[in-house]
């Protein structure tokens, strides 16, 4: 996929990625995979049964996590895709997310800690002063310190603009931060020697809403001029949440300023916090999509292993005592899981590739890549995590009654994945992002360009053995266009009403596009007599299954996309 779909080695032609070759990529993935399988995966179930809990002024994390985290940091996996100027590996984001996928597949609770650090690094890289970068970035990139994002408050969730945390200038250039934050992932722990909280708060005269939000660095331990750690800051954990999943990941209620005010350092200018947040949002949202993919992959592997072993019933046409994998319905479930996981992976790697081309490319190409990344991001996050929940749910179903029993491990993947459509912008918000920000992007040209690329992929199958796939893709492209055209002329709330089905429609069509591209690449290799024949023909089979059985669903989604708001408001609010 990296070699023939994404063209990872082509990225080596971009500035800064010269060290990339396919042997290096394979070596990295092999060793990262081995580390994840041997050190992180064995802690996944045990972490699930030992939820993070507050003890004294810290949070106790499940057994083994701290040692595993130290090893993760020592082996340098935290910073592989960050800037070499701060000790990072300088690899393309495309490769960063492939390793991120493996870490999440092995242990999503564990992986959340470096994921939040990633958000902090992104924010500081783009907006912090040189001095702040020097102070914090080296250790955040290495993972010796971890990062958090403090946005949410009890009355400010999806509506970040409603937040009330205060930041008052202390007269020495620093600020005193007071307020409460909730849902703070890895807000407190002792796996690393320091935690760098990035906190959104309002200065005294700030305008209301999102225009009055500023972003501050609030270290758990203040950092002295020589880089050593000083006194503990006035920030503390109040409690951890009892959650559906990701039990080993502490989701903290944090209190700032119980003793008069936590010391905070302003990033950039006052009232620019929300704008700064947007610069890291694409990366963060893609990473959440990657989480959906990662957990779905694990659920699929578990289900496939069970289906090959478990004997039950006599499948039609099979010998008595055959495994349940021989039942048609079980095959349907496994093919559904497989074709979705492969499409998710292709879509998200292409999303990451567009990000790399936008940051390390030049001129018009970089600008076009930035638009492509912006357009694909709500699909990766929204469609990708909805699919993740669906795939992990099917993973339970494959296990039958045993799927409802925790010891199989199947329910954990489903429970862990259930947060993904919620955080980092709910999937409802992703859908609104798609229809209100991304459809009109570049005067509609971002979507136009994607549809053109999809069409040329469909065209490339004409007259060949994959023509049926191309025809199915063409029809789906037509459905994406039909709704886009309708939305361009519709009233805002009618567009909003169709946003979620349109995200599903567009995601499905994009998945078909990825599958047809994969199938074309696989067919070309088969024709050339190159590569693993089984692997390549399986790719085509998966693509044909998706294009034959899922892609046609886009036609049925058009009606929901274009029905407008009236049907949703036909029952009065108080009668729900």
């Amino acid at each position, binding site marked *: 996929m990296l070699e023939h779909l994404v063209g990872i080695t082509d990225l080596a032609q971009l500035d800064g990625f010269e060290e990339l070759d396919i*042997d*290096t990529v394979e*070596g*990295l993935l*092999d*060793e990262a995979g081995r580390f994840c399988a041997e050190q992180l995966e064995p802690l996944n179930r045990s972490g699930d049964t030992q939820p993070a809990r507050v003890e004294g002024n810290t949070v106790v994390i499940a057994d083994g996590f701290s040692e595993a985290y130290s090893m993760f940091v020592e*082996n*340098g996996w935290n910073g592989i895709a960050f800037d070499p100027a701060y000790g990072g*590996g300088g690899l393309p984001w495309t490769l960063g997310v492939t390793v991120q996928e493996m870490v999440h597949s092995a242990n999503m609770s564990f992986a959340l800690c470096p994921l939040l650090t990633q958000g902090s690094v992104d924010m500081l890289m783009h907006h912090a002063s040189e001095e702040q970068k020097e102070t914090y970035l080296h250790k955040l990139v290495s993972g010796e310190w971890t990062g958090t994002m403090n946005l949410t408050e009890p009355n400010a969730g999806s509506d970040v603009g409603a937040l009330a945390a205060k930041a008052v200038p202390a007269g020495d250039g620093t600020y005193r931060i007071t307020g409460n934050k909730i849902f703070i992932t890895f807000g407190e722990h002792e796996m690393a020697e320091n935690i760098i909280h990035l906190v959104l708060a309002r200065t005294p005269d700030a305008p209301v809403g999102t225009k009055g939000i500023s972003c501050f660095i609030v270290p758990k331990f203040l950092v002295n001029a020589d880089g050593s750690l000083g006194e503990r800051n006035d920030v503390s954990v109040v409690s951890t949440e009892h959650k559906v999943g990701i039990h080993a990941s502490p989701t903290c209620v944090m209190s700032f300023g119980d003793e008069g005010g936590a010391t905070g350092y302003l990033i950039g200018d006052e009232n620019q916090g929300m704008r700064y947040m947007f610069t890291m949002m694409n990366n963060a949202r893609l990473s959440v999509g990657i989480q959906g993919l990662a957990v779905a992959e694990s659920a699929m592997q578990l289900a496939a292993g069970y289906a090959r072993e478990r004997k039950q019933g006599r499948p039609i046409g099979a010998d008595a005592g055959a495994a349940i994998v021989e039942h048609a319905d079980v095959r349907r479930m496994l093919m559904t899981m497989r074709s979705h996981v492969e499409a998710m992976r292709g879509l998200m790697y292409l999303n990451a590739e567009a990000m790399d081309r936008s940051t390390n490319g030049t001129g018009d190409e970089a600008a076009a890549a930035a638009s492509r990344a912006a357009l694909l991001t709500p699909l990766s996050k929204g469609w990708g995590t909805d699919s993740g929940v669906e795939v992990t749910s099917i993973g339970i179903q494959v296990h039958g009654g045993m799927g409802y029993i925790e010891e199989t491990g199947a329910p954990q993947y489903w429970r862990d994945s259930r947060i993904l459509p919620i955080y980092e912008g709910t999937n409802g918000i992703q859908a609104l992002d798609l229809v209100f920000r991304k459809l009109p992007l570049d005067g509609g040209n971002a979507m136009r360009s994607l549809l053109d690329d999809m069409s040329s992929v469909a065209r490339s199958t004409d007259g060949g053995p994959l023509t049926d796939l191309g025809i199915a893709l063409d029809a789906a492209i037509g459905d994406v266009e039909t709704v886009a055209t309708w939305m361009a002329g519709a009233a805002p709330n009618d567009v909003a009403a169709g946003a979620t089905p349109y995200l599903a429609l567009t995601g499905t069509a994009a998945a078909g596009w990825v599958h047809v591209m994969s199938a074309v690449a696989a067919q070309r290799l088969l024709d050339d007599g190159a590569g693993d024949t089984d692997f390549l023909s399986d790719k085509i089979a998966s693509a044909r299954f998706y294009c034959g059985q899922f892609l046609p669903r886009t036609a049925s989604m058009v009606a929901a996309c274009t029905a407008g708001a009236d049907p949703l408001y036909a029952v009065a609010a108080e009668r729900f």
Partner: protein
Amino acid sequence: MKVAVCVKQIPDPAVPGELDPSTNTLNRDDKLILDESDSFGVELALQLVEAAGGGSVTLVSMAPRSEVSGLRTALAMGADDAVLVSDDALAGTDALGTAKVLGAALGRVEPDLILAGVESSDGYTGTVPEQIAGVMGIASVTFAKKIEASDGMLSIQRQTDDGYDEVTCPMPALVSVTGGVVEPRYPSFKGIMAAKKKPVDQVGIADLGIDASAVGFAGSRQETVAVVDAEAREAGEIVIDEGEGFQRIADFLAELKVI
């Protein structure tokens, strides 16, 4: 301190292996990986050089098709360089032939200490390390679980059925390392990126002054005459515990002379 480690690159044990029916030798057409039983020697070598405050770790390997994947893994762990002997004439080489080839390659390295695994995980002859020492005319110590070096002498704890022997011997020497005696480090990200730039000296048998007739199928004194499938595992005995289960288990273990 200059340490050489003999490492074998073998077919991935996770993938079912295949024998070539015409020669009864293992099919090695796919990518080869570092034999896990050699990773302990690599780790010990790295620790010895770190303890000595300097030196180098050189890998020596013999593999078909100039295969370097397994070497890259050991280089990523921290080894400095490698000598790879790859030559079409080597297909079918037996244990003694392998020892001659590796001995000649090691002669070019001139190490103070040579480490090797006790036996490979694909061939299991368990004779190559001692044959290398014989070919090179140096001391050989087997089944090491701990190695210390100082003033040209090695102190070795040599694992035995009853415990361990303490052995001292002068360098240069060849020591075979028991599997599992140390926790091999993971290749770090920086190690992996650095590994691809580390030198791998690729040589053929002519470079080592070895005649093709002395190696390969032609020079092999070892012949696999027949291959039979391993016996299928029999169903275990189920003991129903009616209060005496512990005694049955104890008797069974005593019968196996485990207790």
